[in-house]
């Protein structure tokens, strides 16, 4: 809250002048809330997605969900140029649901159950959707607009712009109610059936939770890479995959990570900003590499 173009010393946060309060109310508080909500949402979306696909290298940014949301926004913008944020959000959620369902369907056809193969399939799938989006945008000369949604940044998260993000709280609550079922489904279809848990229903619920969270964040702040991948995995290393227990931790860790990235982004080139997605991308790529190498060496040890 204290970091920004208009200097507001930490001490003044408690008793701001009228001018400072204006900055805090219109820009700083929305920004912090947006950061916390978006970070938590994308991380939880990753967690749920990893459980329903039984694969820890899958996330909304690597399986087409986010790409489809961007495509949805683009389509909405083209068809109804004056579309409100809400309309764009609904369309983006719809395209995300369809694309993520498509990914789950695709997985059924993939014979290789190797997690890395599944992750690669997801990246290719997302790449195809992304390519379609870029092509359409290029045709209509909207490439610059595309950047806004595919590169997450909180600089536009001000009063009146960030409120749709509160939707993720409601969806997050649904996710928490289903936490045990996500864990059960994460153990496999037969395991779930044995316990009387409907594999299909739970996967469908998970699908909607993931899509709504990811699409909402993309519409409001844009995509943040790696978040849904690394946060759940790091938490899983420490606390396991019992979703009921890890979901709140993943949400907090995701929120904290994005907040840290945002502060770094604002401080490095002060008074200019580096988009949070760039910072998260650099940090996230490092953590992701570490995770992959760790898995790879673990396999060798077993083999």
């Amino acid at each position, binding site marked *: 809250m204290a970091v920004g173009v208009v200097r507001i010393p930490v001490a003044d946060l408690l008793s701001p002048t009228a001018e400072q309060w204006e900055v805090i109310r219109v820009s700083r508080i929305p920004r912090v809330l947006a950061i916390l909500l978006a970070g938590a949402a994308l991380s939880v979306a990753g967690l749920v997605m990893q459980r329903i696909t039984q694969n820890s290298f899958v996330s909304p940014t690597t399986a087409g969900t986010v790409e489809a949301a961007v495509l949805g926004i683009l389509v909405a913008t083209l068809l109804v140029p004056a579309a409100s944020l809400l309309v764009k959000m609904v369309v983006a959620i719809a395209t995300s649901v369809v694309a993520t369902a498509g990914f789950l369907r695709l997985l059924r056809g993939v014979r290789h159950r190797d997690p890395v193969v599944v992750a690669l399939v997801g990246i290719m799938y997302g790449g195809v959707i992304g390519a379609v989006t870029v092509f359409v945008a290029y045709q209509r000369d909207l490439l610059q607009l595309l950047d806004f949604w595919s590169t997450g940044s909180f600089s536009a998260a001000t009063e009146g712009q960030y409120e749709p993000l509160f939707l993720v709280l409601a969806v997050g609550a649904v996710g928490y109610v289903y936490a045990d079922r996500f864990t059960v489904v994460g153990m496999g279809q037969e395991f779930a059936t044995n*316990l009387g848990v409907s594999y299909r229903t739970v996967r469908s619920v998970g699908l909607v939770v993931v899509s709504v969270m990811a699409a909402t964040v993309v519409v409001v702040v844009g995509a943040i890479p790696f978040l849904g991948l690394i946060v759940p995995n790091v938490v899983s290393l420490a606390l396991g995959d019992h979703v009921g227990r890890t979901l709140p931790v993943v949400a907090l860790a995701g929120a904290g990570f994005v907040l840290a990235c945002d502060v770094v982004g604002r401080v490095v080139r002060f008074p200019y900003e580096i988009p949070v997605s760039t910072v998260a991308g650099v940090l996230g790529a490092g953590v992701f590499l570490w995770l992959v190498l760790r898995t790879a060496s673990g396999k060798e040890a077993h083999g």
Partner: protein
Amino acid sequence: MIHVDHVSHAYTPSGPPVLDDVALDITRGAVTALVGPNGAGKSTLLAAVSRLLGPDHGRVVVDGVDVARAPDREVARVLAVLRQDTRLSARLTVVDLVRFGRFPHSGGRLTTADHEVVAASLAHVGMADLRDRYLDELSGGQRQRAFIAMVLAQETPYVLLDEPLNNLDMEHAASVMRVLRTAADDLGRTVVVVLHDVNMAAAWADDVVGMRDGRVVARGRPAEVLRTDVLREVFGIEIPVVTVDGSPVALHWLPRAGRHPMGVGQRY
């Protein structure tokens, strides 16, 4: 009682049947072993009984519950099934896994009684000391016992297991069979288990069902099935059977030159 009512199934519509008009009744309280060569349909039959597979024809009724039609959660309180593919796709601790066995009863909100069942199941399989360990840190035998504790915690009258001895060494295999035996004797569970080794079946089961080409071709007490002529019907090879301490032992590692169509079983 498990009532298998003329069940047939083929994996491809035009292909050969994996289950060919199987009719079988399994009464309560016993340990029943399903044996037979690869592809005989043992695992498919187990999957049909546990509604993991909906057969093309026929139905399975367990204690009056039609398993394919009843709600999953209702079936989950009548029978529990453990399949051979327990690939670990999630990091869970032993006790968390066993707690999920209570899911059909409590839906995730465990009561004191549920926790007592979980503790008793862990004790039954001898895993109480390892309750807080992650499954991926355990040996194969320990992990198998943890999964068995989970299906026991379901407190279903029927417990079905598909080749639970796969990849286990002799000591662990015997300990798993002892756990199943005591589940029947002490806890009153009806156990149905697919086994590869006829001697394991003879040593631990009350009832042995021999399958071949999707049909039940032999059924009886161990001494009635472990005979060279009966085993020939089931496995298609000549297996000498000797008696050790009053129990039949099939010397299947020394088959006599038989009439096996592929020439396997020639004695060198």
